[in-house]
């Protein structure tokens, strides 16, 4: 058992970790895209005129939001063994976070003044034009900071993907730690990489929020 921090091991592990970090970033970006698009679709569907649509939509989002991401990931990976783990991971991350972003969009849509809907009706715009040209542009601007926060939070949950054998940073850290018996170095570095990447991003988000007047 080695005691203390082995700088040589840390130097060896870093390139591997950064290699894995590329996958971490890729999963975050694609997962965020899925969550942003799917969340919007869910939010719009949640405003459908028929309760036959809105009630199941609400129930499913509530269920997805209240159950652990890790179980969803492991379950999906066990069911879809023929699909590449990274794809499964991105889709599951996207669906999980869509349940959250849909609520954000919902709040954003609620924040659009009622008069805007009435004006659309007065101009006899169809539902499609109303959403596309009037409601969404105003709603999306308001929800951008909140979406950004969910992206940061997704970034910190990408290590879960290691469990379904996606070779992202933490997967590499565990592998390096096990192979060289250098868990301390590998995990400490991985944590620092997360800190270095996420702290400036959250500062940036805070600035953006202030500028948009939240």
């Amino acid at each position, binding site marked *: 058992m080695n005691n203390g921090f082995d700088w040589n091991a840390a130097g060896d592990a870093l390139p591997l970790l950064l290699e894995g970090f590329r996958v971490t970033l890729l999963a975050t970006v694609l997962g965020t895209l899925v969550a942003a698009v799917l969340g919007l679709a869910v939010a719009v569907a949640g405003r459908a005129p028929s309760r036959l649509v809105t009630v199941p939509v609400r129930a499913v989002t509530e269920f997805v939001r209240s159950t*652990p991401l890790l179980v969803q990931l492991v379950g999906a990976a066990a069911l879809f063994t023929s699909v590449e783990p990274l794809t499964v991971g991105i889709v599951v991350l996207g669906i999980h976070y869509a349940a959250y972003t849909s609520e*954000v969009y919902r709040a954003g849509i609620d924040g659009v003044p009622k008069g805007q809907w009435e004006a659309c009706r007065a101009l006899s715009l169809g539902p499609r034009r109303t959403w596309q040209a009037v409601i969404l542009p105003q709603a999306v601007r308001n929800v951008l900071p909140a979406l950004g926060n969910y992206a940061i939070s997704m970034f910190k*949950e990408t*290590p879960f993907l290691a469990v379904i054998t996606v070779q992202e940073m933490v997967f590499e850290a565990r592998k390096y730690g096990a192979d060289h018996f250098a868990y301390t170095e590998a*995990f400490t570095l991985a944590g620092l990489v997360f800190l270095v990447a996420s702290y400036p991003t959250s500062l940036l988000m805070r600035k953006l929020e202030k500028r948009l007047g939240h």
Partner: protein
Amino acid sequence: MSDFFSAFFDELPQVRSGLWVTLEATVLGSLAALLLSFVLGLMSISRLLVLRGTSRVVVEFFRGTSLYIQLFWLYYAMPTLTGYQLDPLLCGVVAFGLNYGAYGAEVVRGAIGSVPRGQYEAAVALNMSPLHRMRKVVLPQAWVQMIPSFTNLLIQLLKCTPLLWLISAADLMTVVQQLRDRTGETLTAYVTLLAVYFVLAYALTLLMNLLERGAKRRLGLPTGAGSLLRSRSAAEAVAATPGGAR
């Protein structure tokens, strides 16, 4: 009845003990987080730069590094560094407490900041000591603001407990995985597991709603009919967490 469910009911004592580990980790972890939230949150509004700075650094550190890494660091790295191995459940409780305590500190800070300025001034005018002011005037009002955000954090903490499976604590996830391996019924096993977590999350939400009603009633605020069964809303949490960067 399917193989999975017959195995599930045959192994009920084991399932129950897994459920117990999950609940233990959730309850102890959230108590640790609650304590830390208040300590760090109150430190962050202190007039002393040392306290404020320490709180800021600790909060940013535990929010910025992923929970997953913190848990693994405690389990794998700490023993090689210090020669002291924590029990898996304790590892979980410490990691959940530190991570969610850091998020909770922001909730505490925001809620105290949202208590109207006039309330402080009135308390000063009544010649209350700072401690008395905090305990009798500020905290009861801030507490009502904190509960919805704490509910969200609590559910998130519950949702992280399956991580214990990875550091070989025999939690609910571990037990159900074993049953799945034995019966080969993947879909049934995971759907059942998800359903159990959903029920737990819902029960916790109801409990927290009850708490919120009590806190509001003590302040003489309207409790809102039907608020007891209301489900939690992510949008509410977004609005309630100032500078909500998670």
